Structure formats: C-alpha cells, structure tokens
C-alpha cells in the first residue's frame, strides 16, 4: 500500500505558515495591509517571506494581493457599484493605478467592463434563453424539442 506523502514537520510547518498568510490576505485584502504585517502573520522576515510565498504561489504577495483585489473589483463592478467606489472598496488608493492594473488583468478598462456586464445582465433578464445552450434547456423542459432541433444544435 502506498504511503501518504509525509513531509517532515518543519516542511509541513512551513506550508501551514505560508497558507495562513495567504488566507490572511484573502480576509484583509480591502484593508491597507502592509507586507510586514503579512510576513509577521507567517513569522517570517519580509524578504524571506516574499521568497517563500513566491516559491509556493509563483507570484509575490503583492502580486497576489493585486490580483485578488481586481477579481473582487470585477464582482463589484458587475453589481453596479461606481468605478471610484469599487477602487476604494477593494483597497486601492489611486484610481489611476486601479484602472491600469484592471486593464492589464482583464484587457478592458473598469468602465468598459462594467458596461459589458450591464449589457449581459440586461440580456439575462430579458432574453435568458439566448445565453443557454438549447440542449441543456431542453432537458429541463424550458424549450420545446422543435426549438431545440430547428436551432440545429
């Protein structure tokens, strides 16, 4: 019988500290958290922590924090909050750096993304079945067999 992969205690302790630090970022990303605080959460010095975090997650804590904030911003923008409000709500201090990072991550400006999402939400509300594959909708009796067939799917 195969034995579970059982890292030595210091190694396991290392993983748990890094994971706890990541979860700390997940919980406090809207706050003005400083790297020193996150490193302290993992009981590492700042530079040692950056190196260890990157070893595990292939990005620095700052890069991870930024991507998390952008992902949360996408949700808030889709919910209708203004760009300036979203910028502050996810922990950015400057609108320009928020917009630049947002575009880098998603390919569009926050306002364009919001407009795209509003168009999508309108379509979901007004014509939901134009977004659902008819083979799926047919299973649940939402479209008729004829509609399923004539759409050629």
């Amino acid at each position, binding site marked *: 019988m195969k034995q579970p992969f059982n890292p030595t205690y210091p190694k396991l302790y290392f*993983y748990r500290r890094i*994971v706890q630090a990541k979860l700390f970022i997940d919980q406090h990303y809207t706050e003005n958290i400083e790297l020193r605080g996150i490193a302290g959460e993992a009981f590492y010095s700042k530079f040692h922590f950056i190196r260890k975090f990157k070893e*595990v997650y292939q990005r620095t804590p700052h890069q991870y924090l930024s991507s998390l904030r952008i992902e949360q911003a996408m949700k808030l923008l889709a919910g209708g909050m203004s760009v300036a409000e979203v910028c502050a709500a996810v922990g950015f201090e400057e609108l320009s750096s928020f917009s630049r990072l947002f575009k880098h991550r998603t390919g569009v400006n926050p306002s364009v993304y919001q407009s795209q999402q509003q168009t999508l939400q309108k379509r979901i509300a007004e014509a939901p079945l134009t977004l659902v594959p008819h083979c799926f909708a047919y299973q649940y009796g939402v479209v008729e067999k004829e509609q399923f067939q004539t759409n050629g799917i």
Partner: protein
Amino acid sequence: MTHMNIFVLDQDRALDFYTNKLGLKVIIDVPMNKDARWLTVGTLEQPGFEINLTPVHKSILHSEDTAETLRNLISKGTFGVGIFTCTDIMATYEELKAKGVEFIKPPTKEFYGTEALFKDDSGNWFSLAQLTPVNA
C-alpha cells in the same frame, strides 16, 4: 473542450463550494426555471473552459426514479469526475483543508506526481495533483 457538466445535488450549495472553497469564478448564471439555472464556473487562468454545475432533477433525460438513483450514487461518492492540477500540492492541500474541504486521500507520491483525492459538497470526487513533467 470548452464545457463539461458536473451533476450536483444542490446548485446553491455547489456554487458556494466551487467558488468559496475551490476558488473558481462564476462565468455565467442564468435562471431558467425553479429547478435549474445555467450556472458555469471557471478560472481566469484557463479562459474558455467552463464547468456547468448541473442539478439532478426529473427532466426529459431523467425520470424521477433515474434522478433519485443518480442522486444516491453521487452522494455515495460513486463518481470520480476529474483532475485539478496545481503547482504546489501541499500548499493547496493545506489551504483546502483549512477551508473545510473533505479529503479522502492525503497527498501521496505516484509515478506521475503527487496526488490527493477530495470530495465536493455533493459527493463527487476529484484528484488534486501536482504532476511530474513527463520528461523529468
């Protein structure tokens, strides 16, 4: 492949599991009727691939008996659905455990890498793997 179905027992509960525990993002959520919605999740890192969280109800494809049988089989952990790969399995394992994900096998060395097995909230099980490159 662009879409795959995962049969789930409760779409709201599955949505919570796949987003808040596994960390996937909602791609689209379209209500259809009281029994079902077109609900897909995915990751920003793998655009173009969506997991459709499909509820098991009586439908044109399933009689009530079949749906009930399928629900029982899912909750018993009959179906292994797929493989999630990660870059550091110990970190991912520790994180998912901290979030309450149930593992049925801890990270174990295999010839293809290190693998753990976990269940979703319905009972479907998945491999979580850190694969060894073929040429390594």
